[in-house]
């Protein structure tokens, strides 16, 4: 079983993880009691720190504003949206996403592998990271590629293998910048993954040729940059 690095869990528990890391980690924690126990241990000093502050009652107007916020029309504060309904995302990960009215609808991108599709689920402009949700049919091979930045992958359903290992549902894989791999989906079950990236991938073969010669927007420029700055 592959888990997030201890440093990442420390960053998460101490409140430093960015939005995309929080979503993918919440998805992993939902099914991993070991990592939940680690996070509980790492968050304990934070609890003690918070308790060390004086308990000064906030002004009454603050509660009134808060009550008005949570009474906003149905759906305004809910993260759920029709396009997320078919995704195998744990509720804790969905709850970490911005409310539906602050997100753009999912836009699926096809063509990286036959029958495979990817969409940007979330982004954090402050750290230039994006979180993709991917759906790849059984036995399909994702094009061989190199990571220009770090990549985190959580398998939501199904399984895949590459030169580094075999990753089943719930497993968390981390790839360092420079890693080259070609994931192959197991037979028998469609694979759903969450993938967090800070830099675009460099593809090899015909996909690399397409990438080098066509300037259509990718996840990191054009449309997504405009979206990120919106």
């Amino acid at each position: 079983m592959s888990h997030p690095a201890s440093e990442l869990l420390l960053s998460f528990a101490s409140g430093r993880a960015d939005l995309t890391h929080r979503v993918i980690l919440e998805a992993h924690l939902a099914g991993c009691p070991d990592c939940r126990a680690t996070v509980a241990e790492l968050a304990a000093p934070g609890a003690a720190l918070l308790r060390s502050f004086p308990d000064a009652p906030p002004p009454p107007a603050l509660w009134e504003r808060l009550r008005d916020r949570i009474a906003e029309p149905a759906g305004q504060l809910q993260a759920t949206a029709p396009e997320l309904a078919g995704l195998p995302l744990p509720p804790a990960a969905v709850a970490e996403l911005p409310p539906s009215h602050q997100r753009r609808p999912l836009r699926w991108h096809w063509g990286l592998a036959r029958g495979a599709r990817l969409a940007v689920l979330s982004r954090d402009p402050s750290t230039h990271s994006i979180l993709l949700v991917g759906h790849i049919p059984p036995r399909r091979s994702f094009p061989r590629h190199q990571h220009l930045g770090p990549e985190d992958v959580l398998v939501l359903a199904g399984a895949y293998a590459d030169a580094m290992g075999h990753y089943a549902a719930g497993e968390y894989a981390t790839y360092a910048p420079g890693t080259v791999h070609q994931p192959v989906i197991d037979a028998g079950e469609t694979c759903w993954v969450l993938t967090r990236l800070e830099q675009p991938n460099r593809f090899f073969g015909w996909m690399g040729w397409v990438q080098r010669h066509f300037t259509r927007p990718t996840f990191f420029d054009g449309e997504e940059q405009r979206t990120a700055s919106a």
Partner: protein
Amino acid sequence: MVEAVAPEPPGPDSVLLLHRIAGGDIDAFQAFYRRHAGRVLAYARQLGRNPDLAEDVVQEVFVAVWRKAASYQADRGDPVGWLYTITRNKLVDLWRKTGDTAGLDELQWQQLPGPESAAGSPRSDLLLTMRQALAQVSPEQRAAIEMAYFGDLTYEETAERLRLPVGTLKSRIRAGLRTLRGVLEER
């Protein structure tokens, strides 16, 4: 247990309140808010660097509590630890968004409230604060914890600042956190 440092006040405990909040119980939400908002506000005022925004941070924190209560699991630990993580998320997100990251990389432990700040509060009987607890940790461990736990440095960045191998730093942080927890549990 850390809970022994600041026992829950009378009434339903915070875990039970979170379960009720998950079901849309606004009375439970108000009880949870009354129990914790004061300290969240004090934290945001003291460590948020912009006291004018502290109330906005509290509002965002408790909106997140309302949205995320259903995903809280008891084995994630103390609800106050969960609340601390959310609070710091909101502050760090704000700092990153505004580019106000100066000082984010390191928390000076002297910034933490001392025992005098608890005087007159329901917790005035609590002699130990996090500041005192950190004072029990060795200076080397404290520096590592300040940077990598309360601050915003990666292990690699912290190791570079402290001129340590990353492996040694990790050991130092874990030992420091164990010591910190041990000191708190003794109370």
